[in-house]
């Protein structure tokens, strides 16, 4: 990759700032949606944290996952920090998986979101309902937990598209495009 000029570096810095601002605006509105109304709602912050982890460095992903986790704890009235620990762990693992083994594809993202959100929903059901042996507790699994999981999966498609759109305009490119390569070559020759 060619060396960037000061102007390009400044643009890159601004783009990164705007990108992260947009990520956090998305997180904020998802939190507000999760705390509104009485219907069963998807846990929007799980796919958001995962999608950010897929596309960004591990430290930033871990921090964002912790924030998302804390917000889930607040909106779902869970022990403060429970979902933060869970989501941070998963986002570190996902970030590492993408770094070493996986390609940034929609199918991979959906499979990972399905697995992580299922584990999150299942653990939630386990610790908050099943473990207390309420009468007819399995109804909560079929009527709430599975519903939330399916809704989360459906919502993750839209979240993927939104974050992809943000990244398309604001994510720094790792490789030169053909046009950039030609321009660079022309500049070097002249």
């Amino acid at each position: 990759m060619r060396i960037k000029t000061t102007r390009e570096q400044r643009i890159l810095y601004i783009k990164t700032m705007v990108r992260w601002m947009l990520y956090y605006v998305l997180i904020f509105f998802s939190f507000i949606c999760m705390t509104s109304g009485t219907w069963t709602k998807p846990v929007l912050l799980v796919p958001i944290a995962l999608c950010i982890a897929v596309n960004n460095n591990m430290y930033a992903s871990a921090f964002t996952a912790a924030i998302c986790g804390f917000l889930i704890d607040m909106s779902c009235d869970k022990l403060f920090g429970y979902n933060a620990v869970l989501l941070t762990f998963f986002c570190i693992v996902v970030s590492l998986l993408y770094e070493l083994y996986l390609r940034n594809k929609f199918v991979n993202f959906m499979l990972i979101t399905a697995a992580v959100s299922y584990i999150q929903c299942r653990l939630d059901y386990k610790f908050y309902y099943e473990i207390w042996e309420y009468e007819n507790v399995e109804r909560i699994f079929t009527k709430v937990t599975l519903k939330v999981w399916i809704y989360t999966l459906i919502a993750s498609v839209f979240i993927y598209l939104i974050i992809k759109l943000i990244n398309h305009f604001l994510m720094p490119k790792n490789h030169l495009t053909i046009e950039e390569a030609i321009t660079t070559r022309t500049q070097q020759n002249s």
Partner: protein
Amino acid sequence: MREFLKSTRFKVLLAFLAFLVGIMIYAVTKGGYSVSGASFINTLTKPFRAVSNKISMNIETGLDKFSNADEYYEENQRLKQQIGELNKQLTEFDALKSEVEELRKFVIIKEEHEDFVLSQPCEVLGYIANDPFRSFTIDKGSADGIKPNCPVATAEGLVGITVEVSEHVSTVRTILSPDLSVGAVCSSSSADSGVIEGAILSAENGNTRLSHVSTDNQLKVGDLMITTGRSGVFPENYAIGTIKSISYDSNGLSVCAEIEPCTDIRRLTSVIVITDFSGKKEDIDED
């Protein structure tokens, strides 16, 4: 992978995870009060949540009219039939008398609560996401004199109890939850008492359940259940709900009943918190 496990990055992330676990453990020790970070976010997002919830409730109500039009039509027809039946009953003096007496008892209960110290009316900020027992948050907190384990009610009846209080927001656990037990007695016969404790099946219909009632009871459908006030958590003689159906417990040794709360807990917009009343147990927090 091995390189990653040996790297500084791995150690930093491990330390971060340990820090988060530390916060979680700290939150456990707070005994009903929010962690200051959560309290800050709650205060910050409160106006947005209030506005968003109002919009969401309006949309839900609007969509509800369309999606449940058939149901409402049937309900309307059924209610018309019921009105006809009730009109017949109104002509009968005995039925009228018993109904008036029941209402008078309810009025007396209201008049007898002069000892209550009430909070300002609290607006419901929103229901807890995906909670089958309809816990919700209100826009008043410790700054308004609310503490954990304060009874929450409407003018019609008991709603629940505060479980987590931050400075300007509190979380309320409702009587639909199996985690909340309320000693209850029938308003017409004080001998028939039991424990009101939510159940998953009942909560699906917005009802709660009365259990541990002796088999030789005088309970009948339509009876009003009120609080006993023996625990010191809830005030005495406050309306909870009416009996919808009576059956035997699964063990067959006692009777249980489906209770329809006096107020529809699934559609609350405002409530009051009873911060103090005579007979309140002072060391609830320590318990």
